[in-house]
């Protein structure tokens, strides 16, 4: 049952990610002929909003280092996710083996 529950929750997460991709349609290019970008970062949108609320504000500090391209940026994000997922995978695998071995020892002890 529990396994079922986990599977259903995973499917729900995938659906939650896929649904916006399917639902949000790309608007037609604006009058200036520029393509409107969709699914840009909310952080960037907030940055633009600061520009409209306080047009006089100038950022007073620049990032020390910026990824030279979007590709390098996704490389680093993928690295971050891989490190985390790798560790969770290691924990899951070793826990599962430990539980299995414990069961086998108990079985042998009973024989």
């Amino acid at each position, binding site marked *: 049952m529990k396994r079922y529950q986990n599977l259903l929750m995973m499917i729900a997460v995938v659906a939650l990610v896929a649904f916006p991709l399917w639902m949000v349609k790309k608007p037609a290019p604006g009058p200036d002929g520029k393509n409107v970008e969709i699914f840009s970062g909310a952080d960037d949108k907030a940055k633009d909003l600061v520009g409209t609320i306080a047009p006089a504000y100038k*950022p007073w500090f620049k990032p020390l*280092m910026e990824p030279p391209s979007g590709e390098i940026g996704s490389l680093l994000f993928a690295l971050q996710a891989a490190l985390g997922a790798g560790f969770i995978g290691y924990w899951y695998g070793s826990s599962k083996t430990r539980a299995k071995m414990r069961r086998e020892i108990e079985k042998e002890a009973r024989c």
Partner: protein
Amino acid sequence: MHIMEGFLPVKHAIGWSIAAAPFVVYGLYTINKRIKEKPEQRMLLGVAAAFTFVLSALKMPSVTGSCSHPTGTGLGAILFGPAAMAPIGAIVLLFQAILLAHGGLTTLGANIISMAVVGPFAAVAIFRSAKAVKVPFALSIFLAASCADLLTYVTTSAQLAFAFPDPAGGFAASFAKFASVFAITQIPLAISEGLLTVVVMNALVRFNAPELQEMKVTAAVQEVLT
């Protein structure tokens, strides 16, 4: 929820940094103490940190047509207490600020407060109250993790509104604008984070039942299994 580098006025940047520092220091102290007393919990601390690493790297699309990411701090807060997540969140934010130009050093304090302080404290408060009124275990984990995620983004909106009040409507009008960028986008992501936290918690209950009892996350194994 990352406020971009340089996008908080100097006074605010300094103020939030001073506010965040004690949480990080106290969090390090509680983690050290815990690991010294119970070295066997080191693995779970790793899982909590890894979960935050994964989730905060995943930028997901949302119904508003923009992308954002979950925080993953609820799980660790429920396991190790809210203070422990401050240094863990700080590491993630520092990694992104230095290498990815995502967030920033001048806004690090403000971002730590929203992601690694408000989120985790909210998670623990919601988890404990849900437990007190006997909400089923999985549901209380879901509520704690997803509300922590959402409140992180509400906090970011408030921080930005505080720094940039609307010339006409003041703080409230500005907050409404920032919240419509951050908080609405975050709702489906918060639900995803809640579900993923329950998935990992189910595995923890299965494999690390004694530790969870010791951490007072679950009362007794029987209660969870039935």
